[in-house]
């Protein structure tokens, strides 16, 4: 890496990064195809309760996801907890969705709003921090 940087070398060109590249690829069975489902960083994911009977037992990483989304959690947070790239998590979420083990829900995202009531709610919430 040229010059000096505060960033740990492993994050850029170390074995850590290389290791990560191999592992997720194995996890998703060699598939690199992006998901059909429309998962965004803020899509809300929830494990179905109770889990459907029969079918294959979930793989360990799938089981981990199911534990993490026992309560609703967004994709970005799942990926962070799993320490896996979002794109990899999304492919696993597709499998789980297909298997009927999770529900996925588009975020009710409010953007670029001029709704004073909402902005006031955001402001009040921040004020309580």
């Amino acid at each position: 890496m040229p010059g000096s940087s505060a960033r740990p070398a492993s994050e850029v060109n170390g074995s850590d990064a290389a290791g990560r590249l191999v592992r997720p690829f194995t996890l998703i069975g060699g598939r690199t195809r992006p998901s059909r489902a429309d998962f965004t960083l803020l899509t809300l994911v929830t494990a179905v309760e109770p889990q459907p009977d029969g079918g294959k037992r979930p793989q360990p990483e799938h089981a981990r996801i199911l534990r993490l989304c026992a309560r609703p959690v967004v994709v970005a947070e799942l990926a962070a907890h799993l320490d896996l790239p979002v794109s990899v998590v999304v492919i696993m979420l597709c499998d789980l969705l297909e298997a009927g083990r999770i529900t996925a829900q588009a975020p009710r995202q409010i953007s670029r709003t001029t709704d004073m009531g909402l902005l006031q709610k955001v402001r009040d919430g921040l004020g309580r921090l």
Partner: protein
Amino acid sequence: MAGSDPTVNGTPAPDTVKILIAGGFGVGKTTMVGSVSEIVPLRTEEPLTAAGLGIDDLDGIEEKKATTVALDFGRITLSQELVLYLFGTPGQQRFWFMWNDLAIGALGAVVLIDVRRPESSFAAIDFFERRDIPFVVGVNGFHGEHPYGPDEIRESLALPEHTPVLLCDARSRESCRDVLIALIDRLMAAAAQDGGNAHTA
């Protein structure tokens, strides 16, 4: 209408709002997200195709097909029905192709500036100005030192008069909260100018 609301196991999903924390390399974005987030600073990584990499950055790793880039992620539950997500954008310029995706649906942005080298955040300011995304500037005084006042900084960055500039400390929860509130105030001022919104939710 209530029946058509999306629900998860019977609980209505909260509304979500998103704010970006941007700025140049090493200006304190991760620190800021960590200071206000209710969950420990989380980092989520994206595989990076060679297309997104500047050739210069690949010194010594030319044969690598991809690398990972970290994205800071934070959450603030504002109320039972409203959650704010913070995304710290990757600082290194070669990761900026990700910013477009992140910017979609954001309420606005905080551009952090390291007071000792403001030029490292010029490109971030440019990014939001070009896209007409509202932002405020947070001047991170490393070591708590603020040699310049907000007006001096606004002038030196050639920012429009209405762009709020706040002196802050990325390590302080209160300080970062105040920067976020300044952004909301900015949005409210703009909304009021547009004639506002007659109904309150």
